[in-house]
């Protein structure tokens, strides 16, 4: 038994920060970092180059869920295939649904595209509404406000620290939002085609128009028939570009862009999706810069 414990301590986690956080997606890891600084030890279950719908509850994620004080996810069924497994297999009472240690961003944001009826004949629809909510800075602001409270509730000793760091972040964030909205104003009305409905909040915020998706139905891979139809549609109503998230496979976007004689814009989608998108601020900076380049 003693040798077992000794062996385990060799692979044990490094000295504990105040709060260990498992974020489901990189944007929430970045937000936790903004609020918690070096008082938190945060990792993301997914990277910007992984499709968050399709993750498996692999051993390393179960181990991380076991050790987390707080799990921060998008919710609205985005992680339905894997987050419940992490919870039920973790042996960790803190992060179960309904506990303070499980936080869903979708709980404090009003979702777009809530379907009035749900039928899988429409594809793998998100029944609670579109969960890809982090690309509207006002949603980040709301989530940050709730997350500051939640982190403070779980870790009362550091609560004042989270509050002051959080407030400072929110101030910088509101200033940046005003700047982005000014910079992004020329994008208003621009029509684009996207891959999955994962950029909807960004387009809605900037007043851009989503003319179609490469996926024939949510979650289905693009088919030639659907792309051909889309191409015909673009002849009647031209789009400025095909815009896809960094994790979406490139071929369908290139196929359509080449035939419609429009460029492909790859957006980071989340922190780490491009070399420039290093944190939440540069995520927005880089996304805007890539879209504005279309106007040059």
């Amino acid at each position: 038994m003693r040798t077992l414990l000794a062996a385990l301590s060799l692979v044990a986690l490094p000295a504990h920060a105040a709060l260990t956080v498992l974020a489901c997606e990189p944007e929430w890891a970045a937000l936790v970092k903004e609020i918690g600084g070096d008082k938190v030890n945060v990792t993301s279950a997914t990277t910007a180059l992984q499709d968050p719908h399709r993750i498996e509850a692999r051993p390393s994620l179960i181990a991380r869920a076991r050790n987390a004080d707080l799990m921060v996810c998008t919710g609205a069924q985005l992680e339905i295939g894997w987050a419940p497994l992490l919870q039920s297999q973790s042996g960790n009472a803190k992060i179960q649904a309904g506990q303070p240690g499980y936080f869903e961003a979708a709980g404090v944001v009003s979702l777009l595209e809530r379907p009035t009826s749900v039928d899988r004949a429409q594809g793998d629809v998100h029944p609670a509404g579109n969960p890809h909510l982090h690309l509207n800075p006002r949603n980040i602001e709301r989530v940050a406000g709730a997350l500051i409270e939640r982190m403070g509730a779980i870790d009362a000793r550091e609560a004042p620290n989270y509050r002051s760091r959080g407030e400072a972040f929110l101030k910088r964030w509101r200033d940046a939002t005003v700047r982005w909205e000014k910079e992004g104003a020329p994008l208003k009305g621009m029509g684009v085609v996207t891959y999955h409905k994962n950029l909807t909040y960004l387009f809605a915020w900037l007043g851009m128009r989503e003319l179609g998706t490469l996926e024939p139905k949510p979650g289905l891979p693009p088919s030639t028939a659907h792309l051909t139809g889309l191409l015909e549609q673009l002849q009647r109503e031209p789009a400025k570009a095909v815009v896809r998230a960094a994790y979406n496979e490139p071929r369908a976007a290139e196929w359509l862009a080449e035939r419609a004689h429009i460029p492909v814009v790859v957006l980071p989608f989340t922190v780490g999706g491009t070399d420039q998108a290093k944190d939440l601020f540069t995520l927005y900076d880089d996304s805007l810069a890539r879209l504005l380049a279309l106007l040059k």
Partner: protein
Amino acid sequence: MYRILLCAMALAMAASARGQNVPDELEQLRQRVDHLEKQAAAKPATNAFNPDISLILQGSVARSSQNPDDYQITGFMPSSANSGGEVAPAPRGFSLGESELVISSNIDPYFRGQLVASFTPDNQLEVEEAFFQTLALGRGFTLKGGRFLSSVGYQNQIHQHAWDFQDAPLAYKAFLGGRLNDDGLQLKWLAPTELLVELGAEVGRGRNFPGSDANRNGAGLWALYGHVGGDLGESTAWRSGLSYLRASASDRGFDDHDAGGNPVTGAFSGRSALWIADAIVKWAPRGDATVTNLKLQGEYFRRSESGDLTLNSRPADYTSRQSGWYAQMVYQFMPRWRVGYRYDRLGYGSVSAGSFTSADASILLTAHNPTRGSLMMDWSPTEFSRVRVQLARDNSRAGVTDNQVLVQYIFSLGAHGAHTF
């Protein structure tokens, strides 16, 4: 509704305010709308308290050169389906597979429950799983109780509709009667480490092979297992484990025949001890399995049994040491399409049964090392549907090759399935 009204009012105000200078009022309105939106969003979904329900529909059309009804694995117990477990290949022609109803939910903050009921093609209702599981023990502990798929090995706890081949590996058929789902308790502990280290213990009734249901106090089967797993870089994930299973059988029956082809009724009473070593590696570019991914999986089994054997009520001392393994590879070469190959082999090892020879029990006591090769290709339009073609060359029976072809469908309705590793 109120929110929409307010938004409309805000818009109307904004329109009428154009030209005038009232940004403060607008800002106030915006904040009120935000506040109301927040309240609206905080409302739970209407079906939040309903359990997740899903239904699995399966069926196949199969062709085989040997009759599946007299399937046997020469040299191994159980030698026929009635010794417990589902071991025969798919029936010839059109047949319905098991239709499964899965209901699961958190019970309260402390427990979770799950039922998997299976409607068999011959109109039986079977309880495959019905268990509770703790959520709030903490410190990495989870207790499970009821009937559940044992966590020994790797494939045992994967539900049949999520298997990569239509049937179980030969080693599972020979050593676990297809799969082990006993009635009992499981205690599992996850170490507080970055590497997944999972240790578990199970005690059970031993109602099925390799045990046998007996009217006894105490446990008829117990098992210990350990799994470790983690990532190798961004693209590769792995898990490996070792399990030990101990069962006591009393009058575990099986059907055999003698050299003249006359039926022999056999029974085994004694101890059965099984070791399983398992390993699985999954690879996907940058850890994103959407377009392509590869899965390698293998398990090694080693069993020893000792006790009393009876053949048509004539007794003898019986000891055996037998082994088996399989290795399989499944590759998704483009979205929706996967191909896979599996190789199975069992080792007859050493078997002694007193003065009995293969003339007394030709299935159990004929030295034979069964092998099988299976090739499959499947197409999954979505996560909820799959159609599979599978070819197999099965040498489970001594001196006979069974060539099998089948087409299988698996559909899943209702709650979104779990992405188990």
